[in-house]
């Protein structure tokens, strides 16, 4: 509070040292942030997972599920039906089976009007059945989702999961303790089906209007409390991988994640997070490295903002959801069978049935270095703060310098005028000198005021962000205007816009040289970068972290005074498209080390283009943010820096 009243603020030792060691401080903060992040994986920093919600009572009752033989026969029937229906979803069979089990079964139709390129429509059908809970008036429900994958799908089959789920429903139907309706949802077209179903269930639209026609549902089961997506690949699985990352990096409540791990453990099913099992290694270093890699893979998955399972679409609607992927056992014996998996699912549903309140305890913001350890938001958020503070401090120190300059000029003027008034009385012949002095101080004032020119900053800000806005909102138009495959068209569109802006700035510089002090402009750019990354980080920590990690250091070292041609060239490398290409290149190298250099480059280029299309389509259908953030925030900020760099 002393800051409020002390007029000497900004002139203390702290500010002085900050100004003197500005670069060193920033670099130091960056290094601290990196070390801090690395430490998160250490067991001394992260915490063991625990249950906050006592009502879950996991594994308190003995499971009664014993329908595994039925599940096997369902699987045989399903396999036959799917083969007979050319790999399509055997809807009549499913409807008949559900009716026979005593469930209300319905079909949900939806249509996707593909927003990019030539207008094409794609239709899909979901099947869902509702088990009406005997204890309540259908006010709450739980969802068991199984994505249906046709035979020709590139992903592993989920039919065993479907068979298991059907046997679960047969078992559940006979129980009298249900207080929440149970909805089994067999969705088509991977995440599209679930998105359409959720939109129809809630009578809303999340993406662009007119893209996904989600139709209507005949029956509902009240407020959905939780959802489980099952992707069981085989009747005998090696382990269950619990997937959490959702749309825009949203995560399910940690209690639900813990519940699944706990029950898997209870039933003796191996369970992993990002395919890593929490087993105790002998060396502490090995444990640490394993946690660090798991943590990194979670951060990268979360940063993409793309859900790694159908569960990710539920989060937006306040529904806690996870995906259970049962990975096929490669070994001839061992592993978990339908019986154990069924017990796990029974336990999960009974626990969720116990819940009186919706999931509200425990954590919604966390990072997982392992399936049984977590990092809470209070431990990881300072990293982002440290990273962004590098640019913010730089902005502050520049401001202080400007301030000092300005104050100096103002004081000079003031003194001069005072001297003048005192002098006029004594000596008349000195007036000419005084006039001269006054004129010169007035010029200085003008100059320093011009440095604080908000109009210039405002115009450039509006222009660059306008370009970002156009890139977000005219994606369908771009692809429709430029003929050819959508990925090429979109890439061409974005690349040409970027190139045009870059070249335009240079041409402008040549034609109309504007050479004054741009420090104030850079303050503005840095503050925007810092605040934007912080805001993004609050919504999706991983995305904010990655953007910050990439941009803060270059943005810090870019300066209006010392910029040579190589500085500009280096800054060009940080164009979002280049960054995307580099990221893709590195991951391609990581996943396909056997590729040659040329193949690698061309393949990465291809993947970059498709990534662009996917992220744009995700924004239009699901309301995903990543494309909008990159095109509407990161690109304009980059452009602002570029304009500053070239013009000054």
């Amino acid at each position, binding site marked *: 509070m002393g800051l409020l009243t002390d007029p000497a603020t900004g002139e203390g030792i702290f500010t002085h040292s900050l*100004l003197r060691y500005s670069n060193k401080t920033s670099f130091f903060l960056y290094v601290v942030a990196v070390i801090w992040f690395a430490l998160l994986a250490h067991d001394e920093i992260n915490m063991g997972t625990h249950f906050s919600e006592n009502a879950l009572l996991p594994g308190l009752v003995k499971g009664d599920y014993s329908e595994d033989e039925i599940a096997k026969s369902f699987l045989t029937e399903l396999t036959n039906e799917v083969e007979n229906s050319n790999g399509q979803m055997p809807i009549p069979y499913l409807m008949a089976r559900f009716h026979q089990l005593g469930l209300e079964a319905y079909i949900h139709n939806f249509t996707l009007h593909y927003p990019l390129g030539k207008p094409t429509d794609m239709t899909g059908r979901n099947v869902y059945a509702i088990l009406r809970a005997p204890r309540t008036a259908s*006010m709450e429900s739980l969802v068991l989702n199984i994505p249906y994958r046709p035979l020709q799908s590139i992903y592993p089959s989920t039919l065993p999961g479907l068979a298991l789920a059907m046997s679960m429903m047969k078992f559940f139907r006979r129980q009298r303790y249900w207080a929440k309706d149970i909805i089994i949802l067999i969705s088509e077209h991977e995440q599209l089906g679930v998105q359409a179903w959720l939109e129809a269930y*809630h009578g809303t639209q999340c993406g662009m209007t007119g893209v996904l026609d989600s139709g209507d549902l005949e029956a509902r089961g009240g407020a959905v409390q939780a959802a489980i997506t099952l992707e069981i690949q085989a009747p005998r699985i090696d382990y269950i991988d619990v997937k959490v990352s959702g749309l825009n990096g949203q995560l399910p409540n940690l209690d639900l994640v813990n519940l699944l791990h706990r029950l898997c453990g209870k039933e003796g099913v191996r369970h992993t997070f990002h395919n890593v099992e929490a087993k105790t290694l002998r060396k502490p270093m090995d444990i640490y490295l394993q946690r660090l890699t798991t943590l990194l893979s979670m951060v990268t998955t979360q940063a993409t903002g793309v859900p790694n399972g159908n569960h990710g679409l539920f989060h937006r609607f306040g529904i806690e959801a996870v995906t259970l992927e049962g990975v096929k056992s490669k070994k001839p014996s061992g592993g978990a069978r339908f019986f154990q998996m069924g017990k796990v699912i029974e336990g999960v549903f009974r626990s969720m049935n116990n819940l009186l309140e919706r999931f509200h305890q425990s954590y919604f913001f966390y990072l997982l270095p392992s399936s049984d350890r977590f990092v809470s938001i209070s431990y990881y958020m300072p990293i982002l703060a440290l990273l962004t503070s590098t640019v913010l401090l730089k902005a502050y120190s*520049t401001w202080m310098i400007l301030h000092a300059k300005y104050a100096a000029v103002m004081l000079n003027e003031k003194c001069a005028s005072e001297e003048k008034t005192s002098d006029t009385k004594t000596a008349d012949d000195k007036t000419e000198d005084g006039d001269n002095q006054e004129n010169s101080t007035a010029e200085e004032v003008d100059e320093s005021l011009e440095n604080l020119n908000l109009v210039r900053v405002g115009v450039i800000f509006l222009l660059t962000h306008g370009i970002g806005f156009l890139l977000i909102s005219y994606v369908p138009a771009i692809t429709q205007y430029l003929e050819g495959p959508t990925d090429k068209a979109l890439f061409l569109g974005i690349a040409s816009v970027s190139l045009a802006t870059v070249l335009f700035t240079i041409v402008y510089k040549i034609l109309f040289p504007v050479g004054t002090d741009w420090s104030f402009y850079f303050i503005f750019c840095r503050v925007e970068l810092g605040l934007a990354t912080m805001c993004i980080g609050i919504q999706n920590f991983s995305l904010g972290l990655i953007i910050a990690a990439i941009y803060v250091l270059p943005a810090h070292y870019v300066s209006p005074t010392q910029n040579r041609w190589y500085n500009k060239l280096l800054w060009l490398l940080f164009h979002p498209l280049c960054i995307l290409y580099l990221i893709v290149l590195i991951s391609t190298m990581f996943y396909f080390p056997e590729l040659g250099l040329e193949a690698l480059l061309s393949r990465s280029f291809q993947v970059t283009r498709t990534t662009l299309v996917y992220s744009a389509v995700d924004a239009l259908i699901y309301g995903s943010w990543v494309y909008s953030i990159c095109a509407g925030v990161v690109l304009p900020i980059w452009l602002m820096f570029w304009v500053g760099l070239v013009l000054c």
Partner: protein
Amino acid sequence: MMWGFPYFVLVIVSINFHGSLGLKHKDSFHEELFMKPLVSGHVYSYFQFTTIWEIDKGFKDEDFTNSHLFPRPLGEFIKSYDIKEMHISLTEGVWRHKSWGYPITEAGPGAELWVWLKNDTVNIDQKWKDLVNSLSGLLCATLNFMEQANTLAPQMSLRPTGAFSTKEKLDNKNIKYATLPREIVCTENLTPWIKLLPCDNKRGLSTLLNSRDIHNTNYHSLGIDYRHICIDKACTRLGLELKQTVSLVHDLIIVGTYDFNWSIRKLFGNGVAASCSQAETSSVYVDITSNQTGPIFSIFPEPTKVLTSLQGGQKQLIAQYDLKEITKERIFNVYTIHEKPRIISVATQPILYTHRYITGYGQERGGIVTKIHNKHRTPLKIIYLENIPWFIPIYYHTLKITSGDKTITPLIKKYIPGKSRVRPYYLEVAFEVPERSVTTVRIEFDYMFLKWQEYPPDANHGFYLGSAIITALLPTARNYTAIPQTESLIKNSFNVSRDGYLVQIRTEALIVALPTPDFSMPYNVICLACTVVALAFGPLHNIASKRLRLTVIRKRGLLEKAMKGLSVISARFAKKDSKEEGDENKEKVKSNKTDGRVCEIKETKKDK
């Protein structure tokens, strides 16, 4: 003694000459059970215990001090609150019209109460308050939560069902209607309810009402309906009617019957050993129509009579059992045997059914959507009554009634906006539902924060939004079982065709997740707030009590600094002599005043 004597006589007479006294009292008691196997694999059982008490000409209007079969506590209650007509239901679960058809009495989830008070009642609001409080004691339910803030006076939907003098004008201020969708119904409600019966649960059909079994059903609803009726067609004789009802829906899959063969013993745990001796009628009716249309089953024992009922073009077959006769010989039990393994078929859908849900996500704006399905070939006129609690503020202008692409203009719209903590939102709309269509009624609302003490326990469970009532006159009696309004007993409900069949459908209740604060937070907030206040107080006090003045800092030379240091040290030594110190201070002030103003520029090292 004067009062005691007749009572004494009454007791003796009622023991010895029961029959003659019944005549004198002109009241009768009937116990009936109607059972219907539903296509969806459920069994619907409806118990109705009816007391009819003819009002004598000499009988002082509703003098309940001398009651015979009529439960006296209820009588006194009716008397003291000037009740003309009363309908209470305590329900667990929701009636699923789409697969079960229409029940005999409709009831929304939770507790529902609507009362018509007598015309000359004064101080109505106070009466209502006392009434719900007494009733909550009588039925062990939390009916006392029905306050002014959730009580409505519907103007169209809930008209009196009983006899009403044509001379009397219906005054809308006399009706009170409230629901408590969160009310949980359990044994504690059943026990006092049973106590109101003449035979308690010692004899008769009420012996089937074991709490262990009836609370394991998919739907159970206790009801008490009191009204005035006409004893004869011309309505020259008036009477009081009290119906105590229990509606149950058993799920045969959960009960665990083999091939859907059910029996009374299986459903209720025991048979009926004896009929209630006070009862004039003691009958069980089993609807065996589905034997003809659906899966074939045999019913045992042989019914006393098989009734054929023709109603609105629908033929019904009813097996009737007279318990008075049967229980003389053996314990009564009905059971069915299916010839072939039964498969659950899709139910024939009733003419009119509804579906209701909340739209939107997030905690800012939402909508309530009610879909009304009309499967009939003609349009239907319906009245839609919405009772929305004050904490879900709706926007009247967003009310949209559409059918497909067509907008439907309401015939009548009644709306009284709610007021926070004072009254609920009342909305009643009459409109025509087109033939073979789905009509959607949607209205939007805002999510709002409550005061922190207004959150119920388990606040994150969500807030309940009671069911809407949809009233319609159906042209045919498909899936229709209700007793006509002019009749009292189930036995009189067969073979009565009319122009229209009244239904009052209750929709599903809803849960709305209002924004809920984290209730573990207050502790943290208190800690934080205290710290902030403590930290802020000092400087704020300083700012408020001291004057700030800008001074120009004089740059001191080395010598001056040394002098200053010396003077400080010397001042410390001279501390004992306070006078001297004072002088020095004066001097200081003086020297400040005489200081010339010297401008000073602080050079900041540029970061380059």
